[in-house]
């Protein structure tokens, strides 16, 4: 009994000592966050919410986090980063693609501070130990959202409510850019996995945030005979157009159910909190941060909002849960190039693809990414590089 008591006491002491040191080190962490816009942009709001969630998880105080809003993709980003270093930040994070080269410049000057950049592509070739990229395998989330879309189309088809012969989806994209192409293709494939004859039209707006353009693009797609709309752009334009026209919508970046109760089905989004938790923990423990970090369903980075059962087809929640497990186990791959009549280009299966993984000035493709029966998205670097135009998806316009 005494022995046991001593053992428990020793264990308790060890644990308390351990947790004490961990807390002490977490106290030294100070996170600086550079944001392109502010709460008014769904893209930036998603990061801000991630910061707050991470603060709650790690018990960070308000003094340990500084946010700089409305920082453009210019020299001002470099200045903001250095100012955060002056404020004592041990980690500086920036959230917009165009921030990268300016953040890199700051990283070169401050070796003792960790610089983390979301959506960027340069970390794995820059060769700086204190500069890191991060993204999430959001294509998995889009695939799951696509399943909800495909099931809704099946429901419409069974009820004889399709506008045309075959089920047709519309997609409002920002730019004809790998991140968007990877997104709409995975969404399409998710729908196709349950509704094999689905086709899709994509219209680009040429802007990440343009409410009017997004609304009119969605309206044009609806008028062109689309039975369901999804989007990859940051405003409420497309969801609003769908609600007005009574067309089901699969959203992005967060739930739009409050404004669109009659048409919202489900939304996928990247949760950045796990990444913030990860980088703070690494710095607190004195460990290195991964050069490229790709969040997954398992890390909690790829999440779906609650399904709006009032609009979604029956069984959607169960089907999503089932596929989510299968994706996590590796039983199914989103970009499955081996399956018959799934991913085809000009009627042929995709057997090889050289993607532009290492960014250079001429954007030359450099890495074979099709192997073992699937396209290895977000494995050679965190940011997406799937930019294949596959059969079944018609691009109405292109916007670079």
């Amino acid at each position, binding site marked *: 009994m005494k022995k046991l008591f001593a053992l428990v006491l020793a264990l308790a002491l060890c644990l308390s000592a351990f947790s004490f040191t961990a807390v002490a080190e977490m106290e030294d962490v100070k996170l600086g966050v550079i944001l392109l816009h502010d709460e*008014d942009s769904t893209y930036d709001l998603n990061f801000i919410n991630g910061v707050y969630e991470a603060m709650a998880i790690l018990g960070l105080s308000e003094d340990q986090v500084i946010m700089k809003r409305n920082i453009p993709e210019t020299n001002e980003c470099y200045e903001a980063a250095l100012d955060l270093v002056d404020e004592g930040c041990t980690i500086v994070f920036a959230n917009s693609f165009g921030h990268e080269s300016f953040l890199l*410049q700051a990283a070169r000057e401050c070796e003792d501070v960790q610089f983390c950049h979301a959506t960027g592509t340069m970390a794995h070739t820059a060769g700086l130990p204190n500069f890191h990229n991060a993204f999430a395998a959001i294509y998995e989330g889009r695939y799951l959202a696509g399943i909800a879309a495909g099931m809704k189309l099946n429901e419409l088809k069974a009820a004889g409510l399709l506008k045309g012969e075959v089920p047709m989806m519309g997609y409002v994209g920002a730019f004809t850019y790998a991140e968007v192409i990877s997104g709409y293709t995975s969404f399409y494939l998710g729908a196709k996995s349950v509704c094999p004859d689905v086709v899709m039209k994509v219209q680009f707006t040429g802007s990440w945030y343009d409410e009017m353009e997004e609304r009119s693009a969605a309206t044009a797609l609806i008028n062109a005979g689309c039975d369901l709309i999804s989007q990859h752009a940051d405003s409420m334009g497309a969801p609003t157009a769908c609600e007005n026209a009574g067309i089901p919508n699969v959203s992005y970046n967060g739930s739009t159910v409050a404004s669109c109760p009659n048409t919202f089905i489900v939304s996928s989004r990247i949760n950045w909190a796990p990444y913030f938790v990860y980088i703070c923990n690494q710095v607190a423990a004195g460990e290195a941060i991964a050069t490229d970090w790709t969040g997954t369903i398992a890390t909690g980075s790829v999440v779906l909002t609650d399904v709006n059962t009032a609009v979604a087809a029956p069984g959607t929640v169960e089907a999503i849960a089932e596929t989510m497990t299968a994706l996590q186990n590796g039983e199914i791959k989103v970009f499955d190039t081996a399956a018959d009549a799934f991913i085809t280009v000009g009627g042929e299966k995709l057997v090889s693809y050289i993607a532009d993984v290492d960014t250079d000035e001429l954007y030359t493709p450099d890495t074979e990414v099709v192997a073992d029966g699937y396209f290895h998205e977000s494995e050679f670097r965190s940011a997406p590089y799937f930019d294949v135009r596959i059969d079944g998806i018609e691009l109405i316009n292109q916007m670079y």
Partner: protein
Amino acid sequence: MTSSKINKAHEPLFHLSKRDGIAFWKAWLIRIAAVALGLAVCGLVAYLFSDKLRTGKKTLEDFYYCFIKGAFGTERKLWKFLKNMAVLQCISLAVTPAFRMRFWNIGAEGQTLMGVWGAIAVAFYLGGKVPEWLLLIIMFAAALVCSAVWAVIPALFKARWNTNETLFTLMMNYVATYVVSYFLVVWVPSGSSALGKLKYGKLPPLPFGNQYLLIILISLAMTVLLYIYLRHSKHGYEISVVGESERTARYSGMNVGKVIIRTMVVSGLLCGLAGYLIGAGLDQSVNTESVGGQGFTAIMVSWLAKFNPLVMLLTAGLVSLLNSGAAQISQDLNVSGAFPDVIVGIILFFIIGSEFFINYRIVMSRKGHAGKEVLK
């Protein structure tokens, strides 16, 4: 009852009269009072909108200290403040000659953006192919030419067909934005439209002092040069005459069209210089936000200084101070990005409003005096 109603209709509480002139100290007293009042209102608004202030995590003292901390908090902040002020000053100088001849050029944003674009286009196509010193010179020339062309087009139309220069220069801003958007698509084939920092074409800093010192010195030199140009040259005199009255200018034998075009070339060249400082000196890249609205802010800076280049140092400094203070407020109080704009807006509203009280006098009516006259 009826008679008292008549009284009120004929007897306003006060009326306004234009001042013939005002003592220097009086004008400044009014301005300082306006800023103080503006700051007080800002404090009130901040208190209403910031959770941190209301819950006592931050005090009003912290709030006001942000204005000093934002610009002078660290050595780096001080240099950044001086650099921001220098760039804004340069663009403000650019709009000034045209304003002095009452040519309302509100196209400095687009003219400067074209300067940035011109410099970066040269760096993009020739970077690494010609020696760096030569590249920098060609970039400079390209910036000047692009901005001057952008400024001279509306001037030509004004001189030849008397088109409205305000609308014309405004439209040219949008065209410039789309020119940049178009080239970003051409230059960045991956589709992200984000041109990172270019490797070549970086204006080297002075061998001594801060990296921004060169920009600051160039801007100061331009201020002095433009002051001399406007005050002590024949050109400057002609600008003033055209501004006073085009007919007088014509009568005295001046070619008004030529003066307009020449002055807009000067404006364009100064915008080109500002664009070069931004493109080669700071960003080594271009996007639609490269000028970031400074072309519009410059109008106010120039107007507040009554188109005097030396006084403009003061007004450019004030606006830069407010901007850096506002950014600091957003950061320290953790409020959304629109809030700092509200703060800057309130203070500028009071400053601009104070000009009214400097130009006009409020005369209170003597009690009931006029009314009794009516009754009789």
